[in-house]
């Protein structure tokens, strides 16, 4: 059981997922005292359903600030992994040797090319990619099926074990003196003199800064600090196979092979509201596409499947906001918690420590929806 010996913190983070842990870790490594409040085990947890990609290709093709922010995070990732390793966490299994977006038709190839070309034009050469035809792809993935036309290869992409990342962040946060409290969903937030008072299921606390990183629950929490976050869930389903010899050297949007050898497969995007049931028809479709990509997987056993809810804003991009009413209160909502973990732990935590969001995050305010 965690003993809490103090009630006043430099920062309180509401949310124990990847966003909250990354920011909390980032604040703690700057010497701030951090209390991280996590909800019940049964809460909707996007982090536990994360696919584990550190993914750049295609992100923000039509929203440049997001492309820049994603690229920045991808560049910071090796530093984060190294730092977390030094704190004694588990090996994260980070690989950033590039990633593939495998196309099953000429139309998919063309679409992919246009999107990535647009991104490259904006980024002035910082973003690189290459379209691989069937022959070139076969050199990397000899087992591709006859329906595979080619792939987009992007050297900035990679993957990591999201569960180990969460654990490493938690270990790092705790090593730096931070405190994690579970079953402590936030009930009320109010001004209390020069501090902020936070009332939770596990008692009342005070802090100088509060960061709302509670995923879909941010929609209810944000108004408590004078902010608004319009969010909706988007379901994603994933299947996992038994462990195998190496099947693919690089991760793709549909399939990635973990360090342990199991394949994670999934790319569904469903608007089915607040429910996380696994649907046989959807996972069957996922299996079908995986076999079109690598037919030799036919006899491989599926050992698990699950569904989780992505945190989506109206346009799908993150929301970073600072309260005007309560200037040391921040609300952060996004999916892609693994990819953005490094930017959150370093840059964003820095802004929050200095109580002012940086310029490059200007475009991410909820205000963009009010125009």
């Amino acid at each position: 059981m965690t003993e809490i010996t103090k009630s006043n913190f430099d920062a309180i983070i509401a949310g124990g997922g990847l966003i909250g842990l990354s920011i909390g870790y980032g604040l703690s490594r700057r010497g701030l005292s951090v209390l991280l409040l996590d909800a019940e085990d049964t809460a909707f947890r996007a982090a536990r359903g994360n696919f584990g990609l550190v993914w750049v290709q295609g992100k923000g093709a039509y929203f440049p600030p997001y492309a820049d922010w994603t690229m920045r995070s991808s560049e910071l990732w090796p530093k984060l992994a190294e730092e977390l390793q030094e704190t004694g966490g588990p090996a994260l299994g980070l690989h950033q040797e590039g990633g593939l977006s495998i196309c099953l038709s000429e139309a998919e190839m063309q679409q992919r090319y246009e999107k990535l070309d647009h991104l490259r034009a904006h980024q002035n050469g910082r973003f690189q990619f290459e379209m691989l035809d069937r022959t070139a792809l076969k050199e990397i993935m000899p087992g591709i099926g006859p329906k595979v036309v080619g792939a987009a290869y992007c050297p900035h992409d990679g993957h990591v074990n999201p569960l180990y990342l969460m654990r490493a962040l938690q270990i790092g946060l705790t090593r730096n003196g931070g405190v994690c409290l579970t079953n402590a969903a936030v009930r009320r937030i109010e001004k209390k003199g020069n501090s902020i008072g936070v009332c939770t299921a596990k008692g009342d606390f005070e802090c100088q800064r509060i960061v709302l990183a509670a995923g879909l629950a941010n929609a209810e929490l944000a108004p408590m600090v004078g902010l608004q976050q319009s969010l909706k869930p988007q379901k994603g389903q994933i299947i996992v196979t038994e462990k195998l010899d190496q099947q693919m050297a690089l991760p793709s949007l549909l399939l990635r092979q973990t360090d342990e050898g199991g394949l994670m497969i999934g790319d569904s995007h469903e608007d089915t509201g607040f429910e996380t049931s696994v649907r046989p028809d959807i996972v069957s479709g996922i299996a079908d596409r995986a076999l079109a990509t690598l037919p030799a997987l036919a006899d491989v056993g599926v050992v698990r499947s699950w569904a989780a809810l992505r945190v989506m804003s109206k346009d799908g991009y993150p929301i970073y906001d600072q309260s005007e009413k309560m200037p040391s209160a921040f609300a952060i909502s996004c999916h892609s918690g693994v990819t953005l973990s490094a930017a959150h732990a370093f840059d964003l935590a820095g802004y929050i420590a200095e109580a002012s969001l940086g310029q490059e995050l200007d475009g991410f305010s909820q205000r963009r929806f009010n125009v």
Partner: protein
Amino acid sequence: MANQHFQIVIIGAGPAGMAAALTTTKAGLETIVIDDQKDSGGQVYRNLQANQETSPAYLGQSYYDGAKLAQSFADCGAVYRPDCTVWQITDMHEVALVSRGKAELITADYIIIATGAIERPMPVKGWTLPGVMSVGGAQTLLKQAALGADNAVFVGSGPLLYLTAWQYIKAGLAVRAVIDITGEKQWRSAIPFAPLALLQPDMLAMGRKWIGDIRRNTELIYSVSTIEIIGQSQAQGVSCTLSSGDKIDIDANHIFLHQGVVPNVNLTMATGLAHQWDHQAHCWRPVIDVTGKSSDEQIYIAGDGGGIGGAKAAAIAGRLAASAIVARYGKPRFLAQLYYKLRHLHYLSIRPFLDRLYLPSADFRLAQTDETIICRCEAVSKAGVNAALASGASGPNQLKAFCRAGMGRCQGRSCGLVVQEMIASHTGQSMAEIGYYRLRPPVKPITLAELASLEGPWPD
């Protein structure tokens, strides 16, 4: 095959599933029975129809008692689908299954889950060595293939252990020893419930006969405090310490372990049904009412899967669930239901006694040495689980992510209860507070090709 609809889908063709089908088909309800074995009968009446031809006497009368039920089931008119893997029941009451490499969905008005029991894990040092089997496994070999081993050692407790050792003796096999882990403490807590158990005099008499015959034909060793299996690449013997401190070493290449059975909750949990911790039987069981209705109005659970009662209680539970469903089609059968309820209670009257007598002590529920494997699939030892606990894993699901225990193919069937109890004794919380692995479909592994073979149309 196109997706199909049945009024009643019964999963499992053991005594509960077969008996339920008799009642639903008699009421004229379209019934399908799906089973993962090649023949009906479940584990208890496994291979019964084939064995009737040669009728080996050593299997005992209680086995052949199932013949009438199996025959009635064969004649009842239910669609019977053996050799199928049910991998999921959706919240829309679709039953997803694989048959001969092809996936199908079958929809139902009502589903009866009758998937029976599994043996409680018995993690003693060396229990993963080839040559060590569960007693249930040894008995299956006897029923399925008329196969037995001379000079085997039986270790553990519970009716199935005595029955199987007795069957071995009657089959003319030399049993090297029976090591009984039932302790004085268990006797003391069970004795107050002996009078209630007297309502089942036949069962008590049968148990006495088995134990008497075992005593006369082999060495019966009591009062043991530690057990370990010796061997490098396969089992070579058992070593046990008596409570007197004496040590006994027995050479044996075949060692059969058993310490009771528990409801097989993998399908019911993965379906999202409510479960509760059963303090008396020390296991999880689905929350059901007296007719077997689960926390889902359309799903009933019958037989050992709803709580251990044995084959005869299971058949009555199948009747009871089926007649409750028949009543919901507007055909009430008050008298029949009352009769089944009373008979069910009667069969269960021996459970308070048996559950207490054969609940293994914590020494045998939890592993005794650090190197003992807890999770067989991922080869995680007791020390490995303890290391995960020391680094802060607070529940079974987090522990899974920390050390991989419970991540393998068996989906925790061989380690779940042990891991859960290790967490409980580490944190001081109750078993109910700790909870169990979050189980997800597929309940049994299916291949990608099988999964991909599912065809629509899909409901909206």
